[in-house]
Each structure stands twice: as C-alpha cells, then as structure tokens.
C-alpha cells in the first residue's frame, strides 16, 4: 500500500514538474548577530509535499515562520505564484499553517475554530456553514463539531488543526512538526492519513520535521538543513541512497563511513585503500579527482553490508571481523562487527527465518558488499 502511494505521488510530481508555486530566493536571516538561515534558495512545485528536515537549531523552523510571515528575512525574497510576498503580513498571505501545538482556540468549539478564518474573510453565513461541514467530513470529525478542544484526544485535535488550516483553501499549507505532539503508534497512522487528505485536497505543502522517517513517509521531496544551510534536496530515495555529503549520510538513517585514499581513479571505476579493511574498496565509476584530493569517504548503509561466516569469494569490498555486539530488534538484527583495526561497523540482518542459527558474540565473521552498494563522498 505504501508503495502504491509512493508511485502515485511520483507520477503526480512528474506531471507538474515545471510549475513552481513558491520560490524562495537567497533568503538569509540573522537574529541579532546569530545566523539562522544562510542564503537559502528553493523552488516548491505545485501540488507537492516538501519537507524541511533538520536537527533543532538548523534553521528549518525559522524558514517556515518566514513563509508564514511571522518573521522577516534579513535578505532575499519569497515569491508565491510569481508575486513577491516577502513583506506581506501573515493575514494577507494565502498561506495557512498548522502549528506544532495545534494552537486551537480553547474557548471555541471545533466548529467555531474551523469557521474563524472564514469569518475573517467575511464570507456569507451559508457558505461558512457549508465549508465547515465539508472540512469536518474531510477529517472525519462530524460527530465532534460541538466539542471544545480540551475534550478531544491528541489525534482528534490534530485533525481539527489540519481542517482549520485547510478551511480557507490556501495556496500553500505549512505544517510545523505535524506529528510532534503524537505518540509513536498514532504517528505512523496519522502520517499516511494526513498525506491522503492533502492529496485529496490537492494542496501544496511545506512541512518542517526533525523526524527523518516522517519526512520520508510523507514528502515527495526533502531538503536537509544544517546550520541554516541546505545540504541536499531530493526525493526520499535520492537523499537516502545518494547522499552528497557525510552530514546527509549520517543524518538520514545509519551509515558506516570508511576513510580511504585513492589508489586508482579511472573513468569507469575507482579503488580506495582503507586501512580498516582487508581488501580495497572498488567503486563502479570514477570521480575525476584532482591531484591534491587523494582522500575520500566511502559511505555504506548497514542493510547493504552483508555478514557471513565463510570467506567471501571476491577480490574487493570485504574484510574480516568479529561480532562485538548484537541488538535483536524483532524485524531485523543489528550486528556490531569489530574490524581488526578496532573500528566498529553496523550490519543489518533481516530476520526472515524464525530462530535461525546466527553468529554470536566473539564469533569470527566476514563482511562484504556489492560493487554498487556504497557511495563515495568528498566531504
């Protein structure tokens, strides 16, 4: 089901590939002397769900607040549908936001919360009622229209908050840590439901999150932010399988990083000499390095690192080691393998067989991987 959703998403993005809704141009934000956002430029396409992913303090929330109009950028421009909205106050932007704390008005019922924005636009009463009903239906909250926020559960509050931010039919929806206030089980459930609702409405959406799983589940494209700077933008597959920097590789999922020096760099292949490994690292493409950059990083995901008891029958890409630690997680087991140099690497083994015979602590093992499993990084 998740695959089907992903496929649909990709198709949708391809159709509207060249239609840019929101254009962020060279946005820089200083708080007093501290740099919060550093020369960020992004184009958000019509209809996509775009995630800003980063640790706390990475500037992602500041960027979102500038889109909403709560903060003014020190430099740069924000264009919505080609119109410069950089200096517009929040109440004049056709952008709505769902807050992390939901910010539901505690003295109003669910209905009144949903109607609030519509009343500000002075819409006729009938239309307000009709739209509120439609919104309640959209998030399956018809039964709770007369409740006050404190009489709702966390998940219900989130639905109301989402409905309220969609009620004005904004051109752009902003989600600030949308699942931040929910417990883990509910989170997974709501992620898919929220994506369904957003696709149903067809709204363009920029979300901020520190949870990479959430970003990968919900977003069509992800921007990884670090220290106010955008490290990489791409689809979930892009940023996971082809990270362009050590920071991105380490931020998204687990990774084993090997430092090596270039032994051989041709057009169709290259080899790295890594002192931690018994064999050379062979990569199926060259990087056309300069003479002064001989040192490279090799990033290898734990699930692509194969662990066997027998010595692998290959010239490159293997090493001897011994089992240092085992973490059984149910679906898969994480083996921490200690290489002869003392470096510890991670290796995931899917538990496809119940109670299978597996290497145990201190056993001698071999790790190896296929030629195209890892990524070469310059930094």
């Amino acid at each position: 089901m998740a695959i089907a959703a992903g496929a649909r998403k990709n198709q949708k993005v391809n159709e509207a590939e060249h239609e840019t809704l929101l254009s962020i141009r060279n946005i820089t934000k200083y708080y007093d002397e501290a740099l919060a956002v550093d020369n960020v430029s992004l184009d958000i396409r019509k209809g996509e769900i775009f995630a800003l992913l980063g640790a706390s303090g990475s500037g992602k929330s500041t960027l979102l607040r500038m889109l909403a109009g709560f903060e003014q950028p020190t430099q740069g421009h924000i264009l919505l549908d080609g119109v410069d909205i950089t200096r517009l106050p929040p109440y004049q932007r056709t952008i709505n936001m769902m807050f992390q704390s939901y910010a539901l008005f505690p003295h109003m019922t669910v209905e009144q919360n949903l109607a609030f924005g519509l009343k500000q636009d002075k819409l006729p009463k009938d239309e307000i009622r009709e739209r509120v009903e439609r919104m309640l239906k959209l998030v399956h909250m018809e039964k709770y229209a007369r409740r006050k926020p404190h009489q709702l559960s966390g998940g219900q509050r989130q639905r109301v908050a989402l409905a309220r931010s969609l009620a004005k039919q904004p051109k752009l929806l902003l989600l600030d840590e949308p699942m931040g206030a929910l417990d883990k089980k509910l989170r997974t459930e709501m992620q898919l439901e929220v994506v369904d609702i957003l696709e149903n409405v067809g709204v363009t959406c920029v979300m901020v999150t520190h949870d990479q799983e959430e970003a990968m589940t919900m977003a069509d494209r992800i921007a990884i932010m670090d220290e106010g700077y955008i490290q990489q933008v791409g689809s979930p597959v892009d940023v996971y399988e082809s990270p362009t920097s050590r920071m991105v590789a380490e931020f998204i999922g687990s990774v084993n990083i090997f430092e090596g020096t270039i032994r051989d760099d041709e057009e169709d292949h290259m080899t790295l000499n890594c002192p931690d490994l018994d064999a050379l690292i062979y990569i199926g493409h060259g990087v056309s390095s300069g003479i002064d950059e001989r040192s490279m990083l090799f990033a290898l995901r734990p699930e692509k690192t194969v662990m066997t008891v027998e010595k692998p029958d290959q010239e490159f890409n293997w090493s001897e080691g011994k089992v240092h630690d085992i973490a059984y997680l149910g679906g898969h087991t994480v083996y921490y393998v200690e290489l002869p140099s003392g470096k510890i690497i991670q290796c995931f083994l899917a538990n496809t067989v119940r109670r299978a015979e597996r290497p145990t602590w201190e056993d001698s093992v071999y790790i190896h991987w296929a030629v195209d499993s890892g990524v070469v990084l310059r930094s």
Partner: protein
Amino acid sequence: MLPGGKRWIIGGPYLWLLIFFLLPFIFVLKISFAEAELAIPPYSSMFDWTEEALNIKVSFANYIWLTGDELYVVAYWNSIKMAFFSTLFCLLLGYPMAYAIAKAPPHLQTTWLLLVLLPSWTSFLIRVYAWMGLLKNNGIINGVLMWAGITDEPIQMLNTNFAVYVGIVYSYLPFMVLPLYANLVKHDATLIEAAYDLGARKWGSFFKITLPLSKNGIIAGSMLVFIPVVGEYVIPELLGGTESIMIGKVLWQEFFNNRDWPVASALATIMIGILIIPIALFHRYQNKESQS
C-alpha cells in the same frame, strides 16, 4: 474523602475563616436582631432567663427600619454604583497596564510589577491624604491650572464624587492589575499567531482571542476591587462630600455617632448579603461551565 495530610492543610484556612470571619459575623447577626439600649453593651440581650423560662427575643425592627428610611437605600445604591464604576475604571486602566507588563521582556516584568505595587508600601491613609493636598482648591492641581491660565478660579474637586473615584481607582488599581497580569502572562502566544495566520488583524485577534481568554482574570480583578469598595469608608470620608454617602460611612455613623449597634449590625448584615449573593451565583455558573 481526602487523605489525612491534605485534610489538615485545607483545614487550616477553614479554621482561620471560622474563627476570624464566621464567628464575628454570627455576633453581628445576633446584635442585628436586638434593640438599642443605653447600657454596656448598648443593646438588649437575645437570651433572657426570667421566671424559670428562657425567653429568646428576636427583633426584626432594625431591618424594617432600614427599608423604611430612604437614607439607607440611597447609601446602598450609591455604594454599589460607586463600586461598579470604580471597578470599570480600574479595568479600563488596569487592562492595558497588565497587558503591557505581560508582553514586556521577562527581565522588565518584575520591575514593572514592583512599580505597580510600590505605592502600597506607604500607608494607605497617607496616600489618601496626599490626594487631598493635590485636589483641594489651593492644592497643586488647581495651582498649576491657574498658573497655566486654563482657569481663573479653582475648580472644586475635593469633596466631590470625582475625588472619591480618583482615590478609589488609585488605591485599588494594583488589585486589578495583578490578577489580570497573572492571567495574561500565561497566554499561549501561538494562539495570536494562529489568529493572524487565519486572517485576523491586531484588534480582531485581541477581541476574539485575548479578551475572551482573560475572562477569569477580569472576573478575579473585578471582585477584588468591587467587594472592598462597596464597604469603603476612609476614601469617601476624606475625599468625598455630602453627595457621596456610602454605606461604610453610614455604618460608622450608626455605630459611633448614634451608638445604635443593632441598626449598624443590620446594615452590615444586609451589605454582606448584597455581596454574597452575586458571588454565590457566579460560583455556581463557573462550576456549571467547568462541568460542561
């Protein structure tokens, strides 16, 4: 049933209220049913042991007397009117103050609150006397007005209702500001951002979000001002004139000038009744609200 420790802690204030409020009130209530006498104490006793019989004498004459004389009705009405408008003025003045303090940077908040409270560190009486000096015909305000040529002869301010309002609002303002501040400072700023985000302007979000959410602060502050002002004696006595007859002043006269303790007690009992009924009603309304 509350656990033992809790019962003791709650019991403390209850005991305090019993000894220092309920018991004296029962004495006052008892005296209000007596008749005035030239004796010590100056009222007839309720229980009388004569001819081997216990005579309990409860006289309602004082209450009937109070409703019969227009002076008392006017005094009650004046007190309530005065208290109502003073509360309103305190609210109109105190709300912006409390709002400004609550929105100020945290390190300034304490200083500003202290400034609000600072005047109450000097004696209440001295501060009211100071207002006499300011408001009287040859006082500072009239002096400045005449010096500036705004008026040729002094404006009569002292011994008017205006002076009483000035004195009351000045004295009771902190009681309005503090509960309002305590309420406003807890407000979630993201609610206002959400209101902006949904299209509300500054004033719109104030009237639709901030004001309704500060309802409890407004009620608490208003009660803290209204209730003591109804029984206020010193300010109308010192700053007011003949037009500002308030129940506190009448009470004093009955006790000390007329030495009619029973009538004075009846006055006090009715005053408590007037104050307690709205409070009880409000309490019930609040309980209902929190249950729904």
